[in-house]
C-alpha cells in the first residue's frame, strides 16, 4: 500500500507535522470530551462568573460561570462536526457537478453559469441569506455552507475534468467498449483525488471560520449550543472585563483553521509533482 509512504512524506515537513499534531489533539479532546472535562458545559454558576484561569477552571469561566475549557472542548464537537459535514457535502456535490459540467459539454454552460452566479456573491453574505431563508438550525447551517462551497469544488473539478476527458487513454478505454458511467467513476475520478483532497482540507478550514462568523452575527446555530462562534458572540460584551472569554475560543478557531490550512498546503505540495522539491 502506498498510503503509509505518502503519510511519511507528508510528515516530513515540520510545520505540517505540528499542524497535524494540533488537529490530532483537538480531535482527541473533542471525542473524549465527557472524560477530560470536570464540568458540564451547560452548568451555570453565577457566583463563579468571569473568573480568571485557575487550577480548577483551566481557562476560567464565562459570564454565566460556565467552565470555559469544558465549553471549548464540547464546542469542538459542534464546530468540527459542522465543518466536516460541510466539507464532505460540498466536495460530494461539487465533484458531481464539476464532473457533469466538464465531461458533458452540453451541461457545461448552464451549470457553470449558475456556479458563476453563486460565486459572485460574498461567501458569508450568501450563507447569511440562505440561513435566513432556511431558518437557523445546525442542519441548516451545514446546508447553507454546503451550498456556498459547492461552486468552488465544482470549478476545480470541472477544470481538471476538461483536461482529463481529452486524454488519449480515455479514448482508448472508449475503444474498449467501456460505458460512460464507468469511465467517469474508474478512469476520471481517481485523477481528481488530489485537487479534491486539497479542496476538502481548505473548505474544512473555511467552514470553521464561516460557522464562527455566522454564529457571531447571530444567524447560526442557537446561542445555547456551545460552538466556538456562539461562545465568542455570547461573551463578546464582557471582553473588556475578562479577555479570556473571547481569547480562548478565538484561539481554538485560529489554531484549528490554521492547522487545516497548513495541512492542506502540505497535501497540495505532496500531490503536485510540479511543486515537489528536487532531491
Amino acid at each position, binding site marked *: 500500500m502506498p498510503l503509509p509512504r505518502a503519510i511519511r512524506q507528508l510528515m516530513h515537513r515540520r510545520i505540517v507535522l505540528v499542524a497535524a499534531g494540533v488537529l490530532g489533539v483537538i480531535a482527541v479532546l473533542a471525542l473524549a470530551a465527557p472524560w477530560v472535562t470536570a464540568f458540564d458545559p451547560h452548568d451555570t454558576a453565577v457566583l463563579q462568573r468571569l473568573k480568571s484561569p485557575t487550577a480548577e477552571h483551566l481557562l476560567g469561566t464565562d459570564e454565566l460561570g460556565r467552565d470555559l475549557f469544558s465549553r471549548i472542548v464540547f464546542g469542538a464537537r459542534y464546530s468540527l462536526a459542522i465543518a466536516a459535514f460541510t466539507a464532505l457535502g460540498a466536495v460530494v456535490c461539487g465533484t458531481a457537478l464539476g464532473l457533469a459540467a466538464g465531461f458533458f459539454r452540453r451541461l457545461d454552460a448552464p451549470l457553470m453559469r449558475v456556479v458563476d452566479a453563486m460565486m459572485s456573491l460574498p461567501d458569508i453574505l450568501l450563507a447569511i441569506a440562505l440561513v435566513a431563508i432556511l431558518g437557523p438550525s445546525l442542519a441548516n447551517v451545514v446546508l447553507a455552507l454546503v451550498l456556498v462551497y459547492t461552486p468552488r469544488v465544482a470549478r476545480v473539478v470541472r477544470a481538471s475534468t476538461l483536461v482529463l476527458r481529452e486524454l488519449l487513454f480515455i479514448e482508448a478505454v472508449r*475503444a474498449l*467498449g467501456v460505458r460512460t458511467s464507468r469511465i467517469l467513476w474508474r478512469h476520471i475520478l481517481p485523477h481528481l483525488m488530489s485537487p479534491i483532497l486539497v479542496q476538502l482540507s481548505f473548505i474544512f478550514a473555511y467552514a470553521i471560520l464561516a460557522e464562527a462568523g455566522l454564529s457571531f452575527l447571530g444567524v447560526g446555530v442557537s446561542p445555547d449550543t456551545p460552538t466556538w462562534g456562539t461562545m465568542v458572540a455570547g461573551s463578546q460584551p464582557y471582553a473588556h472585563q475578562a479577555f479570556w472569554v473571547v481569547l480562548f475560543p478565538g484561539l481554538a478557531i485560529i489554531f484549528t483553521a490554521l492547522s487545516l490550512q497548513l495541512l492542506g498546503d502540505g497535501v497540495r505540495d505532496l500531490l503536485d509533482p510540479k511543486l515537489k522539491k528536487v532531491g
Partner: protein
Amino acid sequence: MSLPRLTVRNLSTSFPTEDGLVRSVADVSFTIAPGKTTALVGESGSGKSVTSLTLMRLLPKTAQAQVSGEAAFVTREGRTVDLLQLHEASMRRLRGNQVSMIFQEPMTSLNPVLTIGEQIAEGVRLHLGLGRAAALAHARRMLDLVEIPAAAQRVHEYPHQLSGGMRQRVMIALAMACEPTLLIADEPTTALDVTIQAQILALMRRLQAETGMSLLFITHNLGVVAHHADDVVVLYAGRVVESAPVRDLFAEPWHPYTQGLLACLPGQARRAGQPKPRRLFAIRGQVSSPLSPPPGCAFEPRCNHAEAACRGAMPALVPAPAPAGNERQARCVRAVAKLQQAALARGVAPRAKPAVWSAKVPR
C-alpha cells in the same frame, strides 16, 4: 475467397467548421479479407485517422461529424452489421470485443493510475464476463502472449514502470484480450524507435497468424507496408487515389502521388541506377487546404505530370481491366492511358520503368 471481414463503401466524413464544411474523408471504399492486412497509407491530414475513428464511431460528439456511407462488418456470429448505423449499445459490445483499436501513442494511451493488469482485465470482464481473479489470470496470459518477460510481476505494475515498447505491447495485449476479428492499428509503431518497431510488427504478425484476425493498418511508413500489408489503399486529401495488392503497387505505382511517396524512400535515391546516392526526393508543395480544394485532381498543384485535363474535374477512380484477379484502382487521368498501355504490354514488353525514377528532383 470468403466474404470480406469489413467492406467499406463510399465512406465520407465531414466536419462543420467556422469557415465551412471540411470533407476529411470523401468517398472512401475498401475491403479487408479475413486474416488479411489492408494498409491505409497517406500523409498527415489525409484522413487516415478520421477513417479509423469513424469506423470505431469514436469521433467526439462536439465535432458534429457528418458521416455517410456504409461499413459492413461480418461478426463472429456470421451476421453482417453496418458499423456506421449500429445502435450505440450494440456498438459498445463490439468495441474491444470484436473490433479493437491500437493507438499511436503508447505513452499516453494507458491510464496512469491503474495497474496494467487491471486495465487488461477491464475489457475482459466487460466482454467475456469473467470474474476478477479469472480476468487477472487472463491478463497475465495476454502479457505472456505479447512476450512481456516476468508477466506475473508486470501485471501488477503501473504504466510509468514500463518502457515505450513495453507499453505498446500492453496496448496490443489490451486490444487482443477478447480475440477481436478486426484490429485497427493507427500508426502503432510511429512513436517507437526503429528496433522496437520491428519487434512490435513481428509480434503483430505472429498474433495475426495465430488468431486469423483482419488488420486495418494505418501508417505513413511504406517500408512497413511493403513487409506487412496484403492490400494497400493510398489516401490523398481524404480520397482514395490508388488501391492495389501490395506487390503490384510497389512494382508499378500508377498514381503520381504513390510514385512520389515511393521515390521519397531513402533507398530509392540510390536505386536510380547511379553509383552515388542522389538527394532525397521530396514531393513539392503542400497539401491543398481542405476548405478550398482545387477544382480538379487534388494532387494536381503538386504533380509533375499535370495536364490541362487534370484541372477540369476530379478524375474518377478507374479500375483496371482485371487480368488474373488483379484488383487495382487509380484516380488519375493519365492512368487510363496507362491502363490501356499496360493491357497491351502485359506479358509482351518488359515492364516500363515507373515515370518517377526519371522525374526531376526539385531544388
